[in-house]
């Protein structure tokens, strides 16, 4: 199956001369549909830079970022904005829901910006809310929902329509551990249903939901843990 996201020897430098810092120093990563990849590493290892580049929010100084077969470099600002809207969904620790809009309106917003009719956008939003298990909260405002419910809305918004790439930055950081776990289980389910996910986290418990865990250090991939079922005696017994 063709990759949803591909980073090819991606570099990102900040500053010049003596002050040159390689935030990412030649990272290659491929994420297929159905795959959830976690990126771990200490602060300053390049995790967030990687996520920004993958989502077209920042430009690499070397290498290529390919989303759904489209090389992002060289796209016009308008075309890049369209790829960001149509192909990529974001889930951040800060929820970024619009407080004046209901959850259905929040979820349908990217589709409406994309030119879908309000009716079609609402229909897609309701389907997305249904998929994350909160269809009944469609007409609630963010302030009237719990943190876990709001994060579900954010995941629904990330995957509304036919978007298949979800980029998550510490998505459960603000939640208690059981609610956080439900949100991770949901992200896992959405990936199992065919989405591709990249999760940036410093939390091993969150990263463990991924198929692959990539370790970054000083802008480079130093190791990778690939889930191979079942690996332990525990796995063999169930």
């Amino acid at each position, binding site marked *: 199956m063709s990759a949803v996201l591909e980073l090819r020897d991606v570099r990102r430098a900040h500053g010049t001369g003596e002050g040159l810092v390689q935030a990412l120093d030649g990272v290659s990563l491929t994420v297929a549909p159905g795959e959830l990849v976690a990126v771990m590493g200490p602060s300053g290892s390049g995790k967030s830079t990687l996520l920004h580049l993958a989502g077209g929010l920042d430009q690499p100084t070397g290498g290529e970022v390919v989303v759904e077969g489209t090389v992002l470099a060289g796209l016009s600002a308008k075309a890049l904005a369209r790829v960001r809207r149509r192909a990529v969904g974001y889930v951040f620790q800060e929820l970024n829901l619009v407080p004046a809009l209901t959850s259905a309106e929040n979820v349908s917003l990217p589709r409406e910006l994309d030119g879908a009719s309000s009716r079609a956008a609402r229909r897609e939003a309701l389907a997305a809310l249904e998929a994350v298990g909160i269809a009944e909260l469609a007409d609630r405002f963010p302030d009237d929902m719990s943190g876990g419910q709001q994060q579900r809305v954010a995941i629904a918004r990330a995957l509304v329509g036919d978007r298949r790439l979800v980029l998550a930055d510490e998505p459960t950081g603000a939640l208690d551990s059981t609610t956080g776990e439900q949100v991770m289980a949901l992200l896992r389910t959405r990936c199992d249903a065919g989405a591709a996910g990249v999760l940036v986290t410093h939390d091993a418990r969150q990263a*463990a939901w991924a198929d692959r865990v990539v370790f970054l250090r000083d802008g480079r991939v130093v*190791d990778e843990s690939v889930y191979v*079922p079942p690996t332990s005696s525990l796995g063999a017994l169930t």
Partner: protein
Amino acid sequence: MMSVRHGLLALLLEQPRHGYELRAEFERRTGSTWPLNVGQVYTTLARLERDGAVEGGEENDAGQKQYVLTGPGRAEIEQWFATPVRRESRPRDELSVKLALAVTAPGVDVRAVLQTQRTDSLRALQDYTRLKARAGEDDLAWLLVLDGLVFQTEAEVRWLDHCESRLVRARAAASPPPAPASVPARQQAHR
């Protein structure tokens, strides 16, 4: 210290059970993290009976006895549940020892040792997480055992992260920028 004895008493708190049943139930509850052999179960039951903590009934046709908890047995298991668990001191486990030796042994890439361990621990964590995702919400005992493994492994990974940042800081301090000369020399002496 947790023992098979307490495990069996806890299971008898619910209802009288046969020996083979106790063994199967013990393994099921602990998600097979602690396999028992038949000998252990029967030796322990014999001791419990001798101590008056359980009573064995008549043997059935298959030669199996049913065991019932006595008053003293109940008191013992209630006392066990009421007592906090003290973990054995960590510094003696193999990983701690390995890292302690790695930082002093010449020519060992400590960061590589840390990373190898981290990758392995993460793989175990991925495994436990899959098992949790597959477990039913109603299988509370199994979920709690898995949660325990998840949190212990997470703690280990956080400790490894901490070791690495400590190592990086120590190295930075050991090779300071080249000026002024007298200050780093003094820092070196203090370390």
